[in-house]
């Protein structure tokens, strides 16, 4: 990593310097009206080479899946095959425009229709909307659909959504944003949903439940069918948070075990860039109960011709135009490159890699649930007195690894949530486990190494309290 701190582009500015030589104006010039001029903006004035060097140096400080191991739990930071980029760069995709009309974009519509079909097949659902631009956006769409369906059933008093405490952190926020009330359901000692607690809150105020399966403990919810049946019997609907679909794709169809509506993150399971690398897509898929409520328009096919149609009871548009189309091309390419058999092996190897790493890590670290996991597992970072998970995370940066997700799920003290994904080699997993073992030893022998980490970055340990309380968010020079 380039260790010299990089100044802000404003600090590189020199009055009057320009990067472009403008040709002489061949029409009479008109000054910008004073009312629109904003001299207080202090836009940076730099030449082209300075700009290139500035942004190139910044990019060299970037941590990415293309440079290092990135075991960020529940984020599925898998390798993004370059063939996806090649396909998305075809001029036909690159230069099309959503306003050219269906008749001139049949190829793009065909790809969207085929992607809707394969995604429905993978999840065991009947229809798919490709609109939502992120996982939480898909959640919001799903909660709107549940709400719309309950209102159509004459059940407008159903305003509560049940959320297990091992669910993804965005679920309660999505509920609140949709005007619903989130109600937390505790976990049982085995890490699954506490069925008695669930039973106690199921009444006619419940619109549905949001289940993350596998949950954020990396554990498969074994009672999924029973939970779905209990919620359905009480008049509720079941939302599946598909952020952890990487553990199930090609093996279990969530639509076949009682899930009514679910989002999948194309940027996680289907290998499109994320984490600063590109916009996401959180498609929503629905079974027979909710498919008519999907965000629209979606693509339909008739006699080989593709067109946009609006599902009959659609909640409406969730995104301008047709979602993040470039991401759809990448995800479709990925699915077609793998095929059905490849998708299954993807999930199998994701689970195998997580368990291989879990067993290695378990030798030196405490695990909250030391049993067979799915695609991820949760360790606890307090390996020695006075050492916190935050210290461990910072020390991992020194060792060339992206820290795992920390302090989530909230139900595990000092959580360190590790998801290796299927694309890592045995050597990488061994190296990561060896590093964690070394850090556990350092925590006892040289705790100051952890307390002051990171040591090899341009900027060392940040003051997190000051950053949260008095953030400096804009340049005031």
């Amino acid at each position, binding site marked *: 990593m380039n260790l010299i701190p990089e100044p802000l582009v404003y600090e590189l500015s020199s009055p009057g310097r320009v990067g472009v030589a403008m040709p002489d104006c061949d029409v009479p010039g008109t000054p910008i009206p004073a009312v629109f001029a904003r001299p207080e903006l202090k836009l940076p004035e730099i030449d082209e080479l300075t700009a290139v060097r500035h942004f190139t140096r910044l990019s060299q400080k970037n941590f990415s899946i293309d440079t290092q191991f990135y075991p960020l739990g529940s984020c599925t930071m898998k390798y993004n095959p370059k063939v996806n980029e090649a396909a998305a760069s075809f001029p036909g995709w690159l230069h099309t425009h959503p306003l050219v009309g269906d008749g001139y974009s049949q190829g793009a519509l065909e790809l969207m229709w085929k992607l809707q079909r394969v995604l429905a097949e993978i999840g065991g659902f009947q229809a798919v909307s490709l609109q939502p631009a992120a996982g939480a956006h898909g959640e919001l769409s799903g909660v709107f659909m549940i709400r719309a369906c309950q209102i159509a059933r004459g059940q407008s008093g159903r305003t509560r959504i049940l959320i297990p405490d091992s669910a993804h952190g965005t679920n309660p926020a999505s509920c609140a944003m949709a005007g619903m009330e989130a109600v937390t359901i505790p976990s049982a000692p085995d890490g699954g949903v506490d069925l008695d607690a669930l039973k106690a809150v199921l009444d006619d105020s419940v619109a549905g439940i949001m289940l993350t399966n596998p949950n954020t403990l990396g554990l498969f919810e074994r009672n999924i069918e029973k939970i779905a049946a209990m919620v359905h019997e009480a008049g509720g609907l079941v939302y599946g948070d598909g952020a952890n679909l990487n553990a199930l794709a090609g093996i279990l169809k969530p639509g076949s075990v009682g899930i009514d509506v679910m989002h999948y993150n194309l940027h996680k399971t289907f290998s499109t860039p994320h984490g600063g690398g590109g916009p996401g897509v959180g498609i929503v898929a629905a079974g027979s109960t909710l498919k008519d409520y999907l965000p629209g328009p979606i693509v339909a096919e008739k006699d080989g011709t593709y067109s946009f149609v609006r599902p009959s009871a659609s909640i409406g548009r969730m995104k301008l135009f047709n979602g993040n189309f470039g991401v759809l091309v990448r995800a479709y390419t990925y699915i077609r490159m793998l095929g059905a058999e490849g998708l299954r092996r993807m999930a199998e190897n994701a689970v195998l890699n997580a368990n291989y790493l879990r067993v290695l890590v378990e030798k030196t670290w405490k695990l909250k649930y030391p049993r067979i996991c799915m695609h991820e597992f949760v360790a606890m970072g307090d390996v020695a007195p006075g050492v916190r998970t935050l210290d461990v995370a910072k020390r991992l940066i020194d060792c060339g690894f992206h820290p795992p997700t920390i302090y989530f799920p909230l139900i595990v003290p000092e959580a360190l949530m590790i998801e290796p994904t299927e694309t890592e080699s045995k050597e990488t997993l061994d190296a990561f486990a060896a590093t964690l073992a070394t850090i556990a030893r350092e925590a006892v022998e040289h705790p100051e190494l952890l307390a002051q980490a990171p040591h090899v970055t341009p900027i060392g340990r940040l003051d997190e*309290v000051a950053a*949260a*309380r008095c953030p400096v968010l804009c340049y005031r020079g």
Partner: protein
Amino acid sequence: MSTIDKNAKYRPSHEWARREGNLVVIGISDHAQHALGDIVFVELPETGKVFKQGDTLGVVESVKAASDIYMPLSGKIAAVNGDLAGSPDLVNKDCYGSGWFVKIEAAKLPEWDGLLTPEAYEVESGKEE
């Protein structure tokens, strides 16, 4: 090891309540502040607001997480600790003293008897450590 105020009673969700004159003072336990880590923000209700036992009283935000705080007893808010707005770290430094959250006029004193004794809370919170 976390400290426990022997003069207070507790909820399993780590709030403490202590009787002072006609009022009951409420805060979060040492175990809770330790688990949360450095606290950066405390959101408290306005004076005069009425809550039932178990209602969400406010929110504590730390560098790790945001957590709801629950009312150990039903009652009306008589005073809030204004110092927490500028110095939320008081909760980390002195959770049973200057880091208190609110004082309430308790509406149902029988609820007091249902709260955990310091000994029971010590056992309960010890399970999490």
